[in-house]
């Protein structure tokens, strides 16, 4: 369902509604374009603009502000307020406005509506209906002659209208949520219904969606902080579970304990096994990464790519564009760059520019010190004194696509990921974070996702030793309301 934040314009300014005081419209400090930008940043793709001055005098007046939003920000907008003439509607529609909203004039001027739908298409016109007690409220028209819903529907159908905006609060002014019964009547009659008025909570939005509304306009509740816009938009991206395999000369090493595999140390067999178990991604780290073994590793990558069709990352000793190119051409999706990113940050930029940010994973070894978390290299032997959070931010700037966050403190402990570290990094950068080191139980994964803000979680020996099966882990996470792909 489409969510349309509303922008009401008076005198070229945005009606600024101070918290809990809707009637106070005296401050116009927020520019409509700034309000629009804010909504776009929060996920809006379609805006509902009302020219309140226009509504008052019967013709649109705040054109400048409307076009600024529609043209400069290149966002879809529908505009209402005082559009009663063909020329006014045409002017808006020809200058970047996606849809014009006409009010009760449709009962007065059916010819105008017909002309507009014929000329511009009926997806460019919406009719706004104010309903009360199952009847159409018509302002300035014959107030005593209210029209019943079936008659409105007939009339709209005759005019070939598809989009209707319904404001219908059963108990006027009580803000008790939209009247779903009437929405349903219109939906069933084949209209694309945009619900307006009375939408005061996330619950109202969910109900509108359940009633198969096409869209929902949110105004007052947004400004009053009753609804947070970004929470209105769904995010179905699943958290990822990633087994990690350390490779030494075509063999998976460390903590392998598989009985049902013919050759438990064969990375290809193991990759297939994990893929079938429901792993979302795989990581292979070449732990020796010598020049002579590099060739072997590339053939291995090639073999893996031929045998699985889920994404995988490779890492270990990547130091040149040629390394990256060879691994990607062998079929890897991403490369993990480790200590080399520290000594040669420009390299990260080069890889991102040449191959795209999506294939650059920066692996960071973090250790807690009295200064916070600092980046270590050489397997934890050398402290670079570089702050982990600052380094992650720097990597984001250079074009990293993802951060693989290892904690030297929790590595090997099986006592859980370093949730505080995860929190610190995931709140500082806007990149996906892969939690690593310390997984010992299914609950550790839950904590990394729920409390640490991780987007993916990696484990090696926990999976290799079969102490935890990915299928069981995924069931557990799903039960605990984590979005997981099963």
């Amino acid at each position, binding site marked *: 369902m489409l969510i349309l934040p509303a922008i009401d314009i008076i005198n070229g300014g945005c009606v600024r509604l101070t918290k809990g005081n809707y009637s106070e419209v005296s401050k116009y400090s927020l520019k409509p374009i700034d309000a629009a930008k804010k909504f776009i940043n929060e*996920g809006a793709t379609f805006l509902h603009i009302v020219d309140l001055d226009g509504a008052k005098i019967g013709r649109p007046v705040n054109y400048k502000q409307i076009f600024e939003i529609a043209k400069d920000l290149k966002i879809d907008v529908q505009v209402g307020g005082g559009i009663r003439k063909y020329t006014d509607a045409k002017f808006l529609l020809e200058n970047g406005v996606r849809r014009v909203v006409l009010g009760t004039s449709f009962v007065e001027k059916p010819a105008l509506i017909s002309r507009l739908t014929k000329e511009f298409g009926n997806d460019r016109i919406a009719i706004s209906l104010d309903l009360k007690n199952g009847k159409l409220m018509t302002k300035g028209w014959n107030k005593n002659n209210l029209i019943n819903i079936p008659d409105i529907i007939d009339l709209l159908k005759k005019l070939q209208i598809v989009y209707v905006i319904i404001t219908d609060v059963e108990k006027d002014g009580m803000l008790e949520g939209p009247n779903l019964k009437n929405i349903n009547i219109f939906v069933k009659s084949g209209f694309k219904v945009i619900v307006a008025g009375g939408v005061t909570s996330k619950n109202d939005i969910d109900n509108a969606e359940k009633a198969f509304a096409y869209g929902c306009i949110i105004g007052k509740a947004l400004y009053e902080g009753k609804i947070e816009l970004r929470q209105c938009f769904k995010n179905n991206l699943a958290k990822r579970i990633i087994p990690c395999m350390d490779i030494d000369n075509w063999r998976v090493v460390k903590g392998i304990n598989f009985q049902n595999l013919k050759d438990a140390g064969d990375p290809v067999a193991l990759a297939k096994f994990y893929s079938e178990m429901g792993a979302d991604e795989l990581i292979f780290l070449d732990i020796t990464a010598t020049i002579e073994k590099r060739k072997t590793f590339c053939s291995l990558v090639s073999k893996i790519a031929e045998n699985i069709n889920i994404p995988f990352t490779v890492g270990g000793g990547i130091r040149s564009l040629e390394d990256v190119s060879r691994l990607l051409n062998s079929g890897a999706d991403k490369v993990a760059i480790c200590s080399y990113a520290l000594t040669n940050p420009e390299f990260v930029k080069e890889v991102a520019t040449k191959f795209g940010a*999506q294939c650059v994973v920066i692996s960071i070894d973090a250790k807690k010190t009295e200064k916070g978390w600092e980046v270590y290299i050489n397997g934890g032997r050398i402290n670079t004194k570089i702050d982990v959070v600052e380094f992650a931010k720097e990597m984001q700037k250079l074009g990293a696509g993802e951060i693989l966050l290892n904690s030297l403190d929790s590595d090997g402990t099986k006592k859980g990921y370093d949730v505080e570290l995860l929190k610190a990094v995931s709140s500082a950068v806007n990149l996906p974070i892969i939690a690593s080191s310390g997984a010992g139980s299914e609950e550790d994964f839950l904590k990394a996702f729920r409390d640490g803000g991780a987007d993916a979680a990696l484990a090696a020996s926990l999976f290799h030793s079969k102490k935890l099966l990915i299928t069981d882990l995924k069931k557990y996470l799903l039960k605990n309301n984590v979005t997981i792909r099963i």
Partner: protein
Amino acid sequence: MIQIIDYGAGNLKSVACALEKLGQDYQTIKYPEEIADSAKIIFPGVGAAGNAMRKLTESGFAAKIPQLRNPFLGICLGMQLLSGFSEESETTCLGIINGQTKRFPESVKIPQIGWNRVKIKKDCDLFQGLPDDSYFYFVNSYYVSAPEKFVLGETSYGLDFVSACKKMNFYGVQFHPEKSGDIGLKLLNNFCKLC
């Protein structure tokens, strides 16, 4: 016969491996003259829009693609390039699907990396036999904002974006079917079966 367009943007190995698994006859092509009338075309792509369009223009594909009547599947960047314009380095694209390629809002992590659901909006051959709301693998910072009439599937990531579209013989998918496990293979197989 499936032809995979190789215009130097990203590796083609994954697509080739997937077609191999499906037992499809395929080849990669580097020049527009190589396009066979009877072939189905796969147009993959990772990386940046600006660079990709430059390469397509140089190789002559940019002029050729819009004229094609072969079943045509743009994957990820390949789908975005079907739009008219991309915000990514302000690039003019092929203009087959009138719509724009936009960056995800700041309210979500960019890039989107991982498995996300595709809500099927319109019945079509491509999704034949695939359950609604199936998970596919995505890697993208941008998405195509296309008119409703071209939308086949939608996905939610901080906003509802078009994850599959179709205009005439041109199909676009924002996800990577070649990396989406068995369900992705099924979708590719559906494409291979198109006539």
